């Protein structure tokens, strides 16, 4: 999988840093990256897709600590799920705003654990961007439904959404 540089995820740094005050530096996406946590929201309406925020538990804890104004090693698992779900919501909302048409967002879902896989039928990867934050890698994938009249970059087929 190669990194694509379409504009669809340009809003990610502003959404992340504006919420958490944690700077992001863009880096090349590597297909060998392995997510310990994935948070995602579905985009529903004229255009349908999925925004997936992936990273390590260490980064998720650091982001959660920033949200709750407490040390990363003091946050509880439920707080991590809550905070990362909200980050998927904020990022999904920012990404959605850049895609023409009338759309809504689903409530967020958070998946944690090594070797987790999430599959959504009839979705194809449109673009992915990776960033360094707090010494860890954060990557965001945008999937689009194969039935969308407007295609952003996907090639069709069912793909693994997060792993």
């Amino acid at each position, binding site marked *: 999988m190669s990194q694509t540089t379409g504009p669809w995820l340009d809003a990610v740094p*502003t*959404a992340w840093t*504006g*919420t958490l005050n944690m700077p992001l530096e863009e880096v090349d996406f590597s297909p060998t990256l392995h997510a310990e946590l994935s948070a995602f929201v579905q985009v529903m309406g004229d255009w349908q897709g999925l925004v997936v925020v992936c990273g390590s538990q260490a980064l998720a804890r650091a982001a*959660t600590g920033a*949200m*709750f*104004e407490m040390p990363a090693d003091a946050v509880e698992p439920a*707080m991590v799920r*809550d*905070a990362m*779900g*909200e980050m998927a*919501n*904020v990022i*999904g*909302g*920012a990404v*959605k*705003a850049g895609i023409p048409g*009338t759309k*809504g*967002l*689903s*409530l967020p879902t958070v998946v944690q654990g090594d070797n987790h896989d999430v599959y959504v039928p009839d979705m194809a990867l449109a673009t992915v961007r990776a960033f360094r934050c707090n010494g860890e890698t954060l990557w965001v994938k945008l999937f689009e439904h194969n039935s969308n009249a407007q295609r952003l970059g996907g090639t069709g087929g069912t793909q693994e959404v997060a792993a």
Partner: protein
Amino acid sequence: MRIFVVDDSMAMRMLVKRALREAGYGDHTIEEASNGKDALEAIRNSPPDLVLSDWHMPGMNGLELLEELRKANIGVRFGFVTTEGTPEMRQRVKDAGADFLIAKPFTSDAIKEAIG
């Protein structure tokens, strides 16, 4: 002033309360609820001066909360704090009787400007 913050995310309620503090509302009374139904009951019992509500919440969402309040003739100032910041959504919340919409991510300046 009593401000009621409604969001199913505890993390986001923390961020809204922090932004309120930074915007100069730290010495005001800030109450909160994690869903629209709890908020509706609390607001009916004792209407605050301002409600800041998320849009997407399980059960009763923010728009339904606003509609229920307006049906009950509770004219509390109501603002959305939401990812739904498109012009279409801004018009929709205005039509529903909201006073303003603050798009996430937001700053304390945005909160201050909206509340006035």
